[in-house]
């Protein structure tokens, strides 16, 4: 009795090994792996493979289908919930940005500055009169007058209207680094000219 039992289980193990070798990719599947890790299900699997009666096969099929369903359904629901939460947060943030509760709050520095319209970019903007209006020093006005229009505009925007480099860059479609470099170069040039004029 004992011998036949052990022989039976030995045979069964062989059959299972053969079965696994025949379907290698199937036994690599994550759901199958997880499924067979459970002792109860493994027993069903053993029965169905070693004694393939319709009843055993049906039991195995059903158990696996339920198990696989649970795996898939839970992961699908979890993902859906996760993305719903993220989208909810996104929506809320957008709403808060667009409809702030404090309307007169000073959150935007640019609104207090002159708008970048035609008056600030036309030819009269960089005219000598405009600089005479803003600066008192005769020598400085003279020095500025010898700059190019682009450089004049830059000086006006950043030192008279107190735009920062990033804002100027955005409006002029340049990079912030380019504006910063330009501004520094212009300042150095002005400084040199101013000193030269002082020596005269």
């Amino acid at each position, binding site marked *: 009795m004992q011998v036949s039992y052990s022989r039976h289980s030995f045979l069964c193990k062989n059959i299972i090994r053969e079965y696994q070798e025949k379907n290698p990719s199937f036994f690599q599947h994550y759901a199958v792996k997880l499924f067979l890790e459970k002792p109860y299900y493994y027993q069903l699997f053993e029965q169905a493979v070693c004694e393939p009666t319709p009843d055993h096969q049906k039991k195995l099929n059903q158990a696996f*289908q339920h198990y696989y369903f649970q795996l898939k359904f839970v992961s699908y629901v979890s993902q859906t919930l996760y993305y719903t939460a993220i989208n909810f947060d996104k929506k809320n943030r957008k709403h808060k940005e667009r409809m702030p509760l404090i309307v007169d709050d000073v959150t935007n520095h640019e609104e207090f500055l002159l708008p970048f319209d035609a008056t600030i970019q036309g030819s009269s903007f960089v005219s000598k009169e405009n600089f005479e209006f803003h600066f008192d020093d005769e020598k400085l006005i003279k020095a500025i007058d010898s700059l190019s229009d682009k450089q004049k505009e830059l000086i006006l925007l950043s030192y008279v209207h107190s735009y920062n480099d990033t804002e100027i860059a955005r409006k002029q479609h340049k990079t912030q680094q380019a504006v910063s470099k330009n501004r520094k170069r212009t300042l150095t040039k002005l400084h040199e000219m101013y000193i030269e004029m002082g020596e005269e």
Partner: protein
Amino acid sequence: MMNEQLFSLFTRVQEDSEAIEEIILLFKPRMYKLLTQTSIQERDDLFQELSLALLSVICSYDASKIPNFYELRDEMKYS
């Protein structure tokens, strides 16, 4: 066993509205965990939103596509 419970609940969803409630109950811990990531004022809204999402998943999920043991085996064989 959790999985048998879930499957049998899911198959009863069409006739039995209590089944839906029980499924929602099963997923409640997951939803509460997501709630902690948002601010306190918005948790109720988010919970409602999540419940709605879960409901629509329950109503639209197609369980007939789930293969059984032998179907999956043959599928993997020929792929």
